[in-house]
């Protein structure tokens, strides 16, 4: 799905492994950071530029059905649309960094007001889902590595295939059917009000959080399992086995510590996907978050709002991917101690 490390395509001449100094590590890190910043910038340019393809501009849309040259000209000056694109882009990014995204095209309200609590709600939900997904995937992965082909391994494998291949709304509605309709344990829509207390939040958002975590947990369990099995192929594990270390100890004391870095990187990668999952989940459970606002705005074709939310989602996504890469670099023994594998 997403890339962890850029693939090195060109066959490289064998060079003697350099001793990694702090200077080299910081160079690798700053290079990756620079790449991350470049990506953020170029993505913001793409999102900004996309809107320029609109037939007509915001001024014409705002004036509505009875266009009148003078009003449009005045509006254009007011909105700064008579400026060259480069200036407008800089102004847009500058304002966005300060939390000002301009006004909605359809309602005319300030976008920051629309987004405000919704962004918070979405982050709460994503955090809740991550709290469910991370430990369950981690435990499932460890148990499946402890006994490959065993019951836990097979259940994890099947469940993750089903979760990964099912549309999120199927998981959501199955949960609703069993846990909200047949046995009315949880509410079928997340009725979030301002100042909901924490236990009430955990209760009413249980079904959305479980839905959101299902896909990610399946994906994470698979990747974590693969990462651990990969470590188990290494010579030092064979050594440990030959030494007569018990299988459980091999997994828990020899494999796990060496796989933790990659596992953390996997987690960050999957969380980036999880953030996007809110779009469907929020719609199913009528949860007042950013995803729901995004869908509403797309169907109303409120481009400025869509632009703002896209920028936020893309930033979170790119930053989480960057985090995954940084973790992978920092914990890769081959970068820290090359030639010692």
């Amino acid at each position, binding site marked *: 799905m997403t890339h962890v490390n850029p693939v090195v395509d060109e*066959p490289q001449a064998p060079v003697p492994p350099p001793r990694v100094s702090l200077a080299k590590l910081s160079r690798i890190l700053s290079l990756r950071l620079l790449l991350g910043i470049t*990506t953020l910038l170029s993505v913001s340019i793409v999102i900004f530029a996309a809107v320029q393809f609109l037939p007509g501009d915001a001024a014409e849309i705002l004036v509505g059905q009875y266009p009148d040259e003078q009003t449009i000209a005045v509006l254009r000056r007011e909105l700064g649309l008579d400026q060259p694109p480069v200036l407008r882009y800089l102004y847009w990014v500058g304002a966005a960094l300060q939390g000002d995204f301009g006004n909605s095209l359809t309602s005319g309200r300030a976008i920051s007001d629309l987004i405000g609590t919704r962004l918070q709600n979405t982050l709460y939900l994503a955090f809740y889902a991550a709290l469910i997904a991370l430990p369950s995937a981690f435990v499932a992965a460890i148990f499946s590595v402890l006994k490959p082909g065993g019951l836990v391994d097979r259940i994890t494998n099947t469940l993750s295939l089903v979760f990964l291949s099912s549309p999120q709304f199927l998981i959501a509605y199955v949960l609703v059917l069993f846990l909200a309709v047949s046995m009315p344990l949880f509410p079928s829509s997340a009725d979030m009000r301002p100042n909901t207390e924490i236990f009430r939040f955990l209760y009413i958002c249980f079904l959305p959080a479980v839905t959101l975590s299902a896909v990610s947990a399946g994906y994470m369990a698979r990747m974590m399992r693969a990462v651990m099995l990969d470590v188990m192929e290494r010579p030092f594990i064979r050594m440990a086995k030959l030494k007569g270390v018990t299988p459980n100890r091999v997994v828990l004391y020899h494999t796990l510590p060496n796989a933790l870095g990659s596992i953390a990187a996997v987690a960050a990668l999957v969380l980036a996907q999880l953030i996007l999952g809110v779009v469907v989940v929020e719609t199913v459970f009528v949860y007042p978050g950013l995803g729901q606002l995004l869908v509403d705005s797309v169907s109303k074709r409120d481009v400025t709002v869509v632009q703002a939310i896209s920028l936020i989602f893309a930033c979170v996504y790119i930053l989480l991917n960057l985090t995954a890469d940084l973790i992978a670099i920092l914990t890769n023994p081959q970068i820290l101690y090359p030639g010692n594998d």
Partner: protein
Amino acid sequence: MTKAMIQIFQTVGRATLGVQISLLMLLMLCGMAIFGPLVSPYGETKIVGSAYAQWSSEFVLGTDAIGRDILSRLIYGARNTIGIAFIGTTLAFLIGTALGVSSVLAGGWVDQLLGRIFDMLIAIPQLIMALLVLAIVGTSVETLIGVIAVVDSTRVYRVARAATLSVAVQDFVESARVRGESMRTILFGEVLPNVTLPLFTEFGVRFSSVFLFISSLSFLGLGVQPPFADWGSMVKEYAPLLAFGKITPLIPAVTIAALTISVNVVVDWALRLHTAGFGR
């Protein structure tokens, strides 16, 4: 029956039960998509009974809010959803493969430039990109296919480029170049036949993800528009029935899952067959 057909049947016979069920499922769903109008009891948008009729021999899965037959809509939905996903994925493959292969063959600054552009595009989450485009140009089937083709071609480009690169450095390509063969002959005679399998597997994987993607967009009301039937939008439409303990909304959702699971299982099987040396 020809020899090749017998061989195919034998291979399928030796496969696991899961693979056999998946193959059967795929055949059935594709049959539904292709022969839809012939097997469906009623028309796609025709109002044939009262609203919310119960399951009966007349309306096998009942009728929807305005009295259209749900089974017929399910069958036509297969056609719309699978069709769009198939065309979108195919276009993405044509674009991605063409650019990926020629990027390697051209090399130099062309390769660099294309690589950077696709790196940038791939950093934007697919869903966000699609929603942005749909907001700007509005929802229609053509837009939907176009968006998928462009957004997905970035992934295909990577696979095609990597696969071509690993083939391009091999001796037989080099010797063809030394023989003085044209770029075209090298491309069609040497490179493309050797990147078919990685691309085929990628096609299966991409198709099922595109299929899920379209279903989700339709579910959100941003994909296939009414009155045309589509599995994703059907789920959304029937969702209120869930509160009465009816499973009708789950049926199209389950067919979506069945299709993607089957594709994944079959692709996995094909890959294993290949590594086991099938057909050599």
